[in-house]
């Protein structure tokens, strides 16, 4: 059997966890301390008989001691550690980083997925991200609460919500979460897991990804210049999405820590300052194994869990591939509730897992369509999926997010670029035109004049109807393929076919694009924490020059120009300015304004039933709708004409006009009965005056006001 870890380090940690020394163990086993020491440094291994005795002493079974895939349960059990309040009396009533975001699953999808993308392990393969919504009720919910030691947490929640005194944003959210769980017996878990990612590597306390995510705020360990995030803000969305401020983590590491890689677990609770049982707590709490080596003996550290624990905590990973699972306990979605106005019930229903599922899928498609696009032998950067369970049973099966669903034309543009399947000028639908624009990348250190030339790529294709929102927009991105800017292209003339355009700069412009690396670095420096534009930043000013951001403005202008050149007809050059100016005021056609006449209304034709009778005449039965503002004193003349392709229509005079209801026939015209809202009459045309056989005609029936001139 392959052991997860060498016996020596494993035993050393078990002793440390149990608070025993090597001497203690030696005495208990009736052996020398030197023998124990030899096992720990790996010079020798104990005999089977001795191993059985050790298992007994550590209160574990032989299986564990042989596989060493988990820690023995001896010593302090996994539990909650709440950080004590600050000595100076300072209080934090919430996590500032979490307040920077709306509690919104689409924001979560954006930030968490960006973190996964940035943590991609093998750059030749996509990072796989899966969102699992799991709604727990009844028995399943009770089991989960037990697994997270809920009874020990409850006093802390009560302290925040019970008094009703400090009704701040955080405690209101918590109260709503608790209500949802207790009154409706319902808890939504949202697990975000990635594969082919680095996992939370590094020490529990020192610098490293683990500490950056679990212990620290605003610490970004991202060093790669291509990374999308760099401020360490994004992870706060995980906690912001939890109504209970609770996130459990299971990570499979890409580099072993303590000789292990799989099932590194920790939980983190983010609550405001509180007082429980006379003790004050600063805010955060951790769910882990008390660390005997820490300054305060009850500080919780991550532990290597067994498979059963992982399963009970809903943190099972599908394979040993490195990556991290975040379990958001009590996930909610504020934004999806916003547009709903109505009673309490409908609001609650809109927080359903089905709705969150749809919104997650949509947000992934909208934000990461570019990262998910593959083609021309280029793997996608990202593959994402969403699935939903209820009490362990599938509610919505796993759906792989297809970028072409939400962004068909932009995805087509990028794919055509990757496959080298672009054209110079657009001549048919579905084509993707490619143009090049130059960005002069300034040099670091403030040399104003010189620069590295970079060729950015502009892609333009026709917009697909209705799915992508507003057309005629230019989306800009660099190597991480994250949409930084989505702006409308200015000065597009009326009548231009709707299009979507993509600007690829830096590494996104392809490995062969000149100056790609320099451009990538330059643009990253010009990107603010929101990643929503390129412009002046502190970093840009310091690392380049105060005027460096103008190069970006120039790039934008050139890119818009390139797009316009591809989609719009330039203003005619043949006329001189004066003529053009005058002519622009003298236009005919093109406007379709339908002004309703303001005066007396006419009855309207509601329905016309027509047939050709045995004599060959048109016999029509007409229903009229009479609005209240119709002047019933004025006679109405129905007129029938033969439909023609163009030119004057031959008249079809009536031979017979009979009132059916709501009107009377007087002198060949209709008199409406006052007060009647409906009227009906029948008319038969005069066959002797038909220019052609009725069978081969179409008939137009109209109403005229006044007595007709028609004979």
């Amino acid at each position, binding site marked *: 059997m392959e052991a997860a870890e060498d016996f020596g380090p494993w035993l050393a940690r078990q002793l440390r966890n149990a608070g025993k020394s090597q001497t203690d163990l030696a005495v208990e086993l009736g052996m020398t301390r030197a023998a124990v020491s030899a096992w720990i440094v790996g010079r020798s291994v104990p005999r089977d008989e001795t191993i059985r005795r050790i298992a007994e002493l550590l209160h574990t079974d032989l299986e564990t001691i042989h596989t060493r895939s988990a820690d023995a349960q001896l010593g302090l059990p996994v539990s909650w550690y709440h950080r004590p309040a600050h000595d100076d009396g300072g209080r934090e009533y919430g996590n500032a980083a979490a307040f920077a975001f709306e509690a919104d699953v689409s924001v979560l999808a954006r930030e968490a997925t960006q973190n996964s993308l940035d943590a991609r392990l093998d750059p030749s393969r996509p990072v796989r991200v899966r969102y699992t919504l799991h709604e727990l009720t009844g028995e399943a919910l009770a089991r989960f609460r037990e697994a997270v030691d809920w009874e020990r947490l409850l006093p802390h929640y009560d302290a925040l919500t019970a008094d009703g005194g400090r009704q701040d944003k955080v405690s209101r959210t918590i109260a709503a979460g608790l209500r949802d769980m207790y009154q409706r017996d319902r808890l939504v878990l949202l697990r975000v897991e990635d594969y082919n990612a680095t996992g939370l590597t590094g020490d529990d306390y020192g610098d490293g990804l683990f500490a950056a995510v679990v212990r620290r705020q605003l610490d970004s360990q991202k060093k790669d210049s291509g990374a999308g995030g760099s401020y360490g803000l994004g992870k706060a969305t995980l906690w912001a999405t939890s109504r209970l401020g609770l996130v459990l983590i299971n990570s499979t590491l890409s580099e072993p820590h303590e000789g292990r890689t799989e099932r590194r677990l920790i939980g983190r609770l983010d609550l405001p300052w509180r007082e429980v049982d006379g003790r004050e707590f600063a805010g955060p709490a951790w769910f882990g194994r008390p660390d005997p080596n820490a300054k305060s003996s009850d500080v919780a550290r991550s532990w290597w869990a067994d498979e059963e624990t992982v399963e009970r905590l809903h943190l099972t990973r599908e394979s040993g591939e490195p990556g991290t699972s975040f379990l958001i306990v009590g996930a909610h979605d504020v934004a999806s509730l916003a547009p709903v106005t109505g009673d309490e019930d409908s609001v609650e229903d809109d927080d359903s897992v089905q709705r969150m599922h749809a919104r997650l899928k949509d947000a992934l498609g909208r934000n990461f369509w570019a990262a998910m696009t593959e083609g021309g032998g280029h793997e996608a950067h990202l593959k994402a999926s969403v699935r939903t369970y209820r009490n362990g049973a599938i509610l919505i099966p796993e759906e792989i997010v297809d970028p072409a669903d939400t962004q068909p034309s932009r995805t087509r543009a990028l794919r055509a670029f990757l496959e080298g399947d672009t054209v110079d000028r657009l001549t048919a639908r579905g084509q993707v035109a490619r143009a090049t624009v130059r960005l002069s990348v300034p040099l670091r250190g403030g040399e104003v004049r010189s620069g590295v030339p970079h060729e950015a790529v502009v892609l333009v294709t026709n917009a697909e109807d209705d799915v992508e929102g507003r057309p005629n927009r230019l989306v800009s991105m660099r190597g991480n393929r994250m949409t930084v800017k989505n702006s409308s292209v200015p000065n597009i003339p009326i009548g*231009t076919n709707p299009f979507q355009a993509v600007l690829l700069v830096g590494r996104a412009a392809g490995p062969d694009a000149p100056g790609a690396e320099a451009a990538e670095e330059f643009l990253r420096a010009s990107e603010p924490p929101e990643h929503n534009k390129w412009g002046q930043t502190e970093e840009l000013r310091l690392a380049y020059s105060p005027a460096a951001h103008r190069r970006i403005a120039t790039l934008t202008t050139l890119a818009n120009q390139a797009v316009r050149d591809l989609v719009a007809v330039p203003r005619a*050059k043949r006329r001189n300015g004066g003529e053009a100016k005058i002519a*622009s005021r003298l236009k*005919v*056609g*093109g406007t379709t304004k339908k002004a309703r*006449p303001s005066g007396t209304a006419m009855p309207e034709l509601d329905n016309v039933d*027509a047939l050709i009778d045995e004599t060959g005449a048109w016999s029509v039965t007409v229903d009229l709708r009479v609005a209240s503002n119709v002047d019933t004193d004025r006679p109405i003349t129905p007129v029938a004409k033969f439909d023609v392709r163009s030119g004057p229509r031959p*008249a079809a005079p009536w031979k017979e006009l009979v009132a059916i209801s709501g009107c009377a026939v007087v002198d060949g015209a209709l008199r409406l009965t006052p007060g009647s809202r409906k009227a009906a009459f029948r008319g038969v045309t005069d066959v002797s005056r038909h220019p052609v056989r009725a069978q081969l005609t179409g008939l*137009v029936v109209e109403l005229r006001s006044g007595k007709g001139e028609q004979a």
Partner: protein
Amino acid sequence: MKVYPYRRLTGNVSWRVDSAQLKTEGEPWEDVESKYVSTVERVVALGPNDDRPDWTQARLRLSANLPAKAVDGGSPWQDVKVVAVLTERATNTRTAVELSPIATDGRELTGELYLHRCDLLDRATLAVHVVATVGGVRGRVIATTDAEWFVDVIETAPSLARELDVKLVGFESGASRLRRFKDSPWVVDTTGRIPAVRVNTDFDGLEGLMGGEGGNGAEKTVRELLLTQMCSEVWTAVFHSAVGDLEIEEDGTPLFPHGWQGEVLRAMLPDIHPDRDPEDALREIHAARTGTSATGWGELQPRIHFAASKRAGVPRTLSTTIRDLERLTQGDDA
């Protein structure tokens, strides 16, 4: 409301011009850029421009989508065909082409329509009809799409709206027909394909004033006023021209003309008779002009004048001018 003695197709028949190609004698077909084929305005602009050959023949690729019931087995229609018809009124050209199905269900169809440059003088209209055998009668139209396209062989930009033909020319030195107007700042000629406006450059200083940019405050104010006055006169002239040449049905009903005349009438009638719908207003105006109505032609002139000056933006410009003038005189006092 129209009725027919046979079942017609209800539902949406959508179609579009997908792409266009041009051919010059002895040269291969050349693709027209999509920007000249506007699906928004539904106009194909094939007018001459710098990077376009002097073409003799054009080819339009069309595609159409039929509602499912058109091709259902149980429908009353047999032998359903979709035809695209190009018509040009000036030359009376009529070209039809049948679209052929590309999918097995027969609902998606495509076709290519060829047209010759020499057949067309002005804008041609392109429409799609669905025809079928109904009750033993062949070739009955069971649906005509609402959406018409225009093929424009004059303009380079695909736009539904058309600008009048404005030129700055010297009347005294120019064509003989303009010489007798040499003291006039501008003339309007409504006899052509589209109304022509000629501005007299031999009128001293007029070109600089009307065609110029910027200038001082007074100059701008006068230019603006002058332009609106000219536009007002132009609209009055084109309205009279349009209303004076109507086709009349046997019962005396005037028909809306095609082309710019119809556009001008539809745009201005709501201001002349705001209480009537356009057809009714046109009948009323025609009756007034031909003396068959109680309202005389003379009584209608203030309304026409009002509609023209409103369209030219006279009231707005005048208000601005008066305000500017006050500011200018105040500046002089200071």
